[in-house]
């Protein structure tokens, strides 16, 4: 993607792979969400029409949310969907803008590392104590938590790789490269993402 030194080729390949994995995770999450909706609907209808209570879907749908969010954070990152306030950002250019982009990457990575670390500690204690959920289902918590932790770890690794790549750009003096990796989307791009304006009738992109 960047006509930079070949030393970054393996890193770029890793990032491209991570990107594809992130997109795949989005599709799996979406499918899981649809299945959850179907199951929840069945549960509601059974309860309403036949007075049969299955129970537990509220808990499981919570796990689906946690796991799918953790695994799709990377996709949101690649799509530059994490909101940043760009009032100052739009006023500066070149090197200063690259500094802001780098700062934003460092802060997000720092927060994500901490989150992942403490999520790991939580998982560890769930395994050690054999914790189960406080409900009729008694789900062993390590099960959803390890999937959740995996997603967070994937997000953190992704950020670490991006950070390495950005530092590489910094050393090579490629400020535009940094903004390409960690920049903010233009308003137009963002609106297009949120609304898919060209879709009605002919939704073929995607």
């Amino acid at each position, binding site marked *: 993607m960047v006509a930079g030194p070949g030393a970054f080729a393996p890193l770029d390949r890793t990032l491209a792979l991570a990107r594809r994995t992130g997109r795949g995770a989005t599709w799996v999450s979406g499918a899981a969400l649809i299945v959850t909706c179907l199951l929840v609907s069945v549960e509601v209808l059974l309860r309403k029409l036949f007075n049969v209570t299955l129970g537990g879907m509220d808990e499981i749908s919570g796990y689906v949310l946690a796991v799918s969010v953790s695994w799709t954070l990377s996709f949101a990152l690649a799509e530059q969907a994490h909101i940043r306030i760009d009032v100052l950002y739009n006023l500066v250019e070149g090197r200063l803008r690259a500094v802001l982009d780098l700062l934003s990457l460092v802060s997000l990575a720092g927060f994500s590392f901490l989150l992942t670390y403490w999520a790991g500690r939580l998982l560890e204690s769930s395994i050690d104590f054999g914790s189960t959920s406080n409900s009729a289902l008694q789900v062993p918590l390590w099960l959803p938590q390890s999937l959740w932790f995996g997603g967070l770890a994937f997000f953190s690794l992704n950020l670490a790789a991006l950070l390495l790549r950005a530092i590489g750009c910094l050393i090579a003096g490629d400020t535009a490269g940094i903004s390409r990796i960690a920049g*903010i989307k233009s308003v137009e791009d963002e609106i297009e993402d949120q609304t898919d304006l060209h879709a009605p009738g002919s939704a073929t992109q995607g």
Partner: protein
Amino acid sequence: MLATALTTLILLIVLSLPVAAAMGVLGLILGELYSPMPLVRTLGDLAWSTSTNNLLVAIPMFVLLGEILLRTGVSSRMYTALSHWLGWLPGGLMHSNVGTSALFAATSGSSVATAATVGTVALPEVQVHGYNERLFLGSLAAGGTLGILIPPSINMIIFAVLTNTSLPSLYLAGILPGLLLAGLFMAMIAGACILNANWGGQRISTNWRARLQSLPHLLPPAAIFAVVVGSIYAGFATPTEAAALGVVAALVLAAAFGALKVSVLLAAFEGTMRTTAMIVLIIIAAYFLNLVFAAIGLADAMEDFISTLGLGPYETILVIAGFYIILGCFMETLSMMIATVPIVTPIVISLGFDPIWFGVVLMLLLETALVTPPIGLNLFVVQSIRPSRGPMNDVMVGTMPFVGVLLAMIGLVIAFPSIALWLPAVMR
């Protein structure tokens, strides 16, 4: 401490850090400075309990519901149908803009999606019928904001989670103000077009036959609204279950319109998860920040500070409203809401106001923020889908009268809280 917190937050935001990271970093800094205990240890537990919160599950479901509907072409049929019913009013299709927005808002929880969907269908009509373009653009930008006031609203879900208020009550409380606001928008349009005869464009020709024939096109959104909102108030579904039912209904509709393709679903999945992941990460960071605020006594300090100002309850509310209106000119609404609600809401409650009522006032303030320049997402949305690439200024000027209506509406709800609270009280 208050000053440190505020200046650090402003600094981090101005440095354009991602909002989630800015809140997390602020929490860490304040925790290090003022707390005797290592608060960061709570992060794992807190992130887990937040991201498995059952109410938050409704967010991806409602986003997905909107994403699917967006791709079924329901909205353009809806627009044509409403133009037969509302087009005779002075201002013609501008009333369909507001009406379709209100109706679409009843199936969608997002203001941006509402403005974009209705705008895409409506804008080609400006040239055809010779409307005043500015007012027409304004009606789209402002009409779209109804998305977060009329249930289902994603912003209301987040408000309910952050403040521990009842989402069904909030949804009920949003209905009347939503309808009233749509009515006021239309009254303003009609008034403006009566005063300036050439603004209203050519008459839409229609007859009762066409009107009756158009009715079936209003059924899909009505059905989705009935499924989602009806199931909550009939008492057999929680908001999350209602959202799931809505998604299933939308899938059935999409299948009926032949729009249910794999490519459509994958695009919808990507849009849904992009939004959801971003929102949930901000909410996790906000929860952590709130915990820090509470632990170091910053929330109390804030309340003390407000009480030293010696303002009466209504003066305080007006100050808060003014604060949101100014902040809303510069800040993106979702992050503005998540960052401020946990601090502001306890103050409002301590003044003796109802949190449900404040939720509605806040939604109106957020709607205003969506259409106030220089940063108003709905203005950008409408500008970006204009077929005639005129100056951005047109949209801003055309929206101004609607901002006036929004401010009047905020005043009305503050002066007469029962506009919001009557329906929840009756339905209880």
